[in-house]
C-alpha cells in the first residue's frame, strides 16, 4: 500500500495515440515511397530524372464532387507522368487556416511543387509567400488569387489554371434569358461572398442577362456553396417572390438545394433552374427535366493540367501565366455528348 499504484496513472491519451499511430502508420505506408532526397528541390532541377518528383495538390475540400473529379484527373496525370502526388484538403471549404497549415506541412515535406485551389483569394497569399521562400513553385487552380494583394506581398505563382468563370456566368445568363423569352424575374444564389469565383460568375451572369432588359434580378443572396443552405435560401426566396420565373445558382450544390425547395413548394418545373459545374447529380436532374441546365467546367482537366504544368515547372520549363480550361452550357439537348 505504500508503493506506487500504477493503476491510477492515466495512460489515456497515450493509448489513444498508440492506436491512432498504428492506424495511420498502416495507411500512411501505402502511400509512402522513399522520401525525396533533401536538397533535390526546385531550382537545382539539373537532374530531374534522378528521382520521382513529388507534387502536392491542396484542394478546397473533398466533400464536393467537383474536387473529387479534379482529384481523379490529377491522379491520372500523376500516374501517366510518373510523379508522386499528395492530395490534401480541409474538412470544410471555409477553412482557410487549415489550408494554410497544409501548405506549411507540405513545405516541411519538401515537395517539389504545390498546386492549390485557394479557399480564400487573399488569405492564401501568406502561404504562397512561405512556399516561395522555401523555393517551391506554386500553381493556382480554379480560383484566382487576389492579384493586388499578391503583388503587395511579393507572392509569386507560376500560373493560373481554371475555367473562365466570368465567361461561364455570361453564357449561363444568355442561355437563361433566351429560355425565359427575354422577360421574367430571376433570383440568384451566390457563393461565399468575397470569393473570386463567386464574384466572377455573378458578374458574368449579370452581363449575360443585361442584353435582355426585361429580365430582372429580384433577389440575390449567398448560400455559401452548400446544398442545404441553397435549399433554405431558395425556400425563403419563393416565399418572398411568388412570381419567380427562374433561379441561377453559382454552383450545382446550391442549384440542387433550390430544386428541392421548389418541389417542396409544389412548383416543380414551373421555375427554371440553372446551375454551374455540371456535376453528375446536376446532369441527372437535367436529364429528368428538373433542372434547365448547368455550365460545365472540366475539373478533371484542371486536375491533370495542374499536375502536368507543375511537373514542367519543376523541370524549369516556361509556362503561360494563365491557362484556360473550357466552359460549356449543358442542357437537355446536349446532355448525351
Amino acid at each position, binding site marked *: 500500500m505504500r508503493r506506487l499504484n500504477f493503476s491510477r496513472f492515466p*495512460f489515456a491519451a497515450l493509448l489513444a495515440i498508440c492506436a491512432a499511430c498504428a492506424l495511420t502508420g498502416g495507411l500512411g505506408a501505402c502511400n509512402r515511397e522513399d522520401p525525396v532526397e533533401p536538397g533535390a528541390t526546385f531550382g537545382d532541377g539539373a537532374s530531374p530524372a534522378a528521382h520521382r518528383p513529388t507534387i502536392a495538390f491542396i484542394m478546397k475540400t473533398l466533400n464536393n464532387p467537383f474536387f473529387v473529379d479534379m482529384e481523379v484527373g490529377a491522379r491520372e496525370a500523376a500516374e501517366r507522368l510518373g510523379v508522386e502526388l499528395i492530395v*490534401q484538403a480541409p474538412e470544410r471549404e471555409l477553412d482557410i487556416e487549415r489550408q494554410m497549415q497544409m501548405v506549411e506541412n507540405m513545405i516541411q515535406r519538401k515537395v517539389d511543387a504545390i498546386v492549390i485551389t485557394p479557399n480564400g483569394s487573399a488569405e492564401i497569399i501568406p502561404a504562397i509567400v512561405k512556399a516561395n521562400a522555401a523555393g517551391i513553385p506554386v500553381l493556382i487552380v480554379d480560383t484566382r488569387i*487576389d492579384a493586388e494583394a499578391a503583388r503587395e506581398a511579393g507572392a509569386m505563382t507560376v500560373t493560373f489554371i481554371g475555367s473562365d468563370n466570368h465567361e461561364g456566368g455570361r453564357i449561363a445568363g444568355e442561355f437563361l434569358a433566351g429560355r425565359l423569352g427575354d422577360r421574367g424575374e430571376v433570383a440568384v444564389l451566390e457563393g461565399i*461572398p468575397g470569393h473570386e469565383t463567386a464574384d466572377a460568375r455573378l458578374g458574368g451572369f449579370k452581363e449575360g442577362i443585361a442584353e435582355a432588359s426585361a429580365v430582372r434580378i429580384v433577389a440575390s443572396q449567398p448560400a455559401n456553396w452548400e446544398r442545404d443552405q441553397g435549399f433554405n435560401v431558395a425556400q425563403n426566396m419563393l416565399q418572398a417572390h411568388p412570381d419567380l420565373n427562374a433561379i441561377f445558382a453559382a454552383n450545382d450544390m446550391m442549384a440542387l438545394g433550390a430544386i428541392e425547395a421548389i418541389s417542396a413548394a409544389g412548383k416543380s418545373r414551373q421555375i427554371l433552374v440553372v446551375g454551374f459545374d455540371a456535376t453528375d447529380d446536376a446532369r441527372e436532374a437535367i436529364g429528368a427535366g428538373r433542372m434547365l441546365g448547368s455550365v460545365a467546367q472540366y475539373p478533371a482537366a484542371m486536375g491533370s493540367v495542374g499536375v502536368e504544368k507543375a511537373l514542367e515547372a519543376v523541370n524549369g520549363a516556361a509556362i503561360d501565366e494563365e491557362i484556360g480550361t473550357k466552359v460549356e452550357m449543358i442542357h437537355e439537348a446536349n446532355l448525351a455528348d
Partner: protein
Amino acid sequence: MSTSRREWLLLHGRELGGIGGLILLCFGLWILTPYFLTVSNLVNVAQQTAINAIIAVGMTYVIITAGIDLSVGSILAFSGVILARALNADAPLPVALFAAIGAGAALGVVNGMLITYGRLPPFISTLGMMSVARGLALIVSDGRPISGFSESLRFLANGDLIGIPMPVVITGIVMIAGQFCLKRTWFGRYVYAIGGNEEAARLSGINITFVKVAVYGLAGALSALAAIVLTARLNSAQPTAGAMYELDAIAATVIGGSSLMGGEGSVVGTLIGALIMGVLRNGLNLLDVSSFVQQTVIGSAIIAAVLIDMAIKRRRV
C-alpha cells in the same frame, strides 16, 4: 516525502499520461516519416497549434466551471473583423488590438451575464451568441474578407523573439499566465470550486456571478487574441473564420483531462491536448493520409482518450 511524491504523481497523473502519449505519438511519427522530427517542422507544429491552444485556455476555464462556450469561433470572427476595420480606419496598432480584445471580452461578458443574471444554461446562451457574433461579424465586414495589413500586425504571426516565432511566444505567455492563475490565485480556486460544487461554493461566500462573468469574458478575450494571431497569419480577417473552432477547443480541453461535469482540468493538460491534435494533423498530412481518414483518426483519438480516462477513474476503488 514518499507520500508527497505519490500525491504529486496522483495530482499530475493526467498530465503525465498526456505527455507520455504525446511523446509516443512523436516517436511513432519519427519512425514513419523523416520529415516530422526536424526543428523547422516542430516550430511549424507549434505555430499551427497556437490558435487552438489560445482559445482552448479560455475553454478550459469555462469547462472547469461546468460550463461550455460554443461561441468562441464566432467571437473570433467578430473580433478579427473589428481588428481589421480598426486598422483600415488607420487606428494605431495598439488601439486596434485593444478594440479587438475588448470586443471579444464584451461578447464573452454578455454570455456570462445571460448565464448568471438570465439563468440560461451555458449551452443555450453561447449557442445563441454563436449565431449573434457570427451575424455581427458579417454585418461589420459586409460579408467580405478584409485583407492587407501593415507589417507591424503581421509581425505578430511572422516575426520572432530571439528565434521563437511570435505565435508561439504569445501562446506560451497565455499558457503560463493561464496555468498560474488557475492553480495559484484565489480566482482559480473559485473557478474549480464552482465546478466542483456550485452550492457549496456559493455558501462559502464565493460571488458566483462575478466569477462566471469573468470566466466567459476571459474566454471571449482569448478568442479575440486568437483572432489577432489568425488575422496576422492570413493577412486577412474573414467574417466566416473560426467556424467549428469551438469544437477543436473543446476537444483539446477534453483530451487534456478536463471533465465536462466541471471541477477538473488544467491549462497544461489542455496544451498537451492541443499539441496532440496539432501533431496528429501535421503527421497525417506529412504521411499523405486522406483527409477523410484524418477526421476519423482525430475523432477516434478524442473518444479513446476520454474512454480510457474514465475507465481508469472508475477502477479506483
